[in-house]
């Protein structure tokens, strides 16, 4: 899966789960201010991403610092690469 495909998949998963429009899924979109997601949504986002990509996020301080969709894309790509290099 290319990086672009991973980003597309993340966007589609979030759009479906949180009933967002794909056109709003821009890297600069802030989760709280632009996409209206809150701490409960963040918990569910962790579950979704962990189930899909099979890496662990919960209790990861780096995840808690994420503010924008672009931050999340970067985080997922790094975690995915780390998991693949471990394998």
């Amino acid at each position, binding site marked *: 899966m290319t990086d672009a495909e991973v980003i597309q998949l993340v966007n589609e998963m979030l759009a479906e789960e949180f*009933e967002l429009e794909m056109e709003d899924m821009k890297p600069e979109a802030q989760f709280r201010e632009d996409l209206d997601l*809150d701490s*409960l*949504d963040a*918990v*569910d986002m962790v*579950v979704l991403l962990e*189930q899909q990509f099979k890496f662990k996020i919960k209790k990861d301080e780096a995840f808690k610092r994420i503010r924008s969709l672009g931050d999340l894309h970067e985080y997922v790509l790094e975690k995915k690469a780390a998991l693949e290099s471990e394998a």
Partner: protein
Amino acid sequence: MNRVVITGMGTVSPFGIGKDALLNGLTNGESGIIHLDDLEAIAGLHSHVGGKVPNYDPKVIARKKRRTMSAMSIFAVLAAQEALEQAGLTEEDRIAPKTGLSVSSTIGSVQTMEKFFSTFLEGWSIEAIKSTEFFKIMNHSVAANLAGYFQICGRVIAPSSACSTGCQSIALAAEAIMTGRQEIMLCGGTDELHPLTNGTFDIIEAATTGYNDQPTETPRPFDEARDGIACAEGSGILVLESLDHAKARGATILAELSGFASTADPANMASPSATAIGRCMEVALQDAGIAPSEVDYINAHATGTRLGDAAESQAIASLFGDKPMVSSLKGNLGHTMAASGAIEMICTIAMMNKGVVFPTRNLVNIADDCAGVNHVQKTAHQTVSTAIKNNFALGGINTSIVLRGYND
């Protein structure tokens, strides 16, 4: 004590969203009971019929409000919306501390419990459990969701007493107004159907099992061929208000709740007693300060079980004789569980306002053990000034509410 009146009513039922759909179904003598194909796959389950709410769109509720709601909360929001619109309350009244809420269900969402435990037990893990699951399972899920949705700031209570939940919630709401603790209460009951609802009653041999191929022929309250409960879902929500408050804002008064009783029958968890039911109705009459002879109509709890219908009939015959008209709407609606008392009370008030009494659907041959009362078998065009709504539950929790047409 403050007098309590009803100024708004809303429903979601097997006939659809809103009072109009419900009352049209009853006026036409229709049944909301259908065959439920998915129940056939469950080993040991013999009751394959029920009443489901058709064609509703959960997405009329914004995602962030809806994410903590299971179907029962969604039904309650839709019903409450209709009740509040009819009451014509201002937002200022609705969100003031003088307005409270008393709404509950028989149990938290079983649909969500199934999902939760399927995930949990599969790997003995909570890693895939989403954040909002618990909010749908907790006992006061509906009350908390409704309070959040409508921004209710007064007392919020969730009295759960199985099938008596609807009327007990209404009675406790009335009590809060009578004693001056609240001016306005949103109240009622709600439930969602799950295969285990049928299962629960089938296990204790109280569910209908003989009409799976003719679902509209069951349940059969008071009939000699009755064979048990047809489980259903829905919601009934009412706006109760102190008479003074309603008059001060010029509200249309639909009826007065002039008394109630909430009594227990501790003798047996599952077998109703005519004596205990009679005592409940008697205490309700005393609370309202009226004699049995003043009652025109009794909207029975009668679910179509062998024991329950007989006990209620005997209690009515003993206390009232054969004067007041008696009917059960469960022949049309099935047993909407925690919603039943509230939905059927709304129907009773509608009947009082229209001067009509709906008959007991599927009551063809009155059973010997249900005889001695004035069963309504075809629509009666009669004035009903005073009515009683009965609502009973497993666990011996009985509730009776006395309703009167409003006179200043």
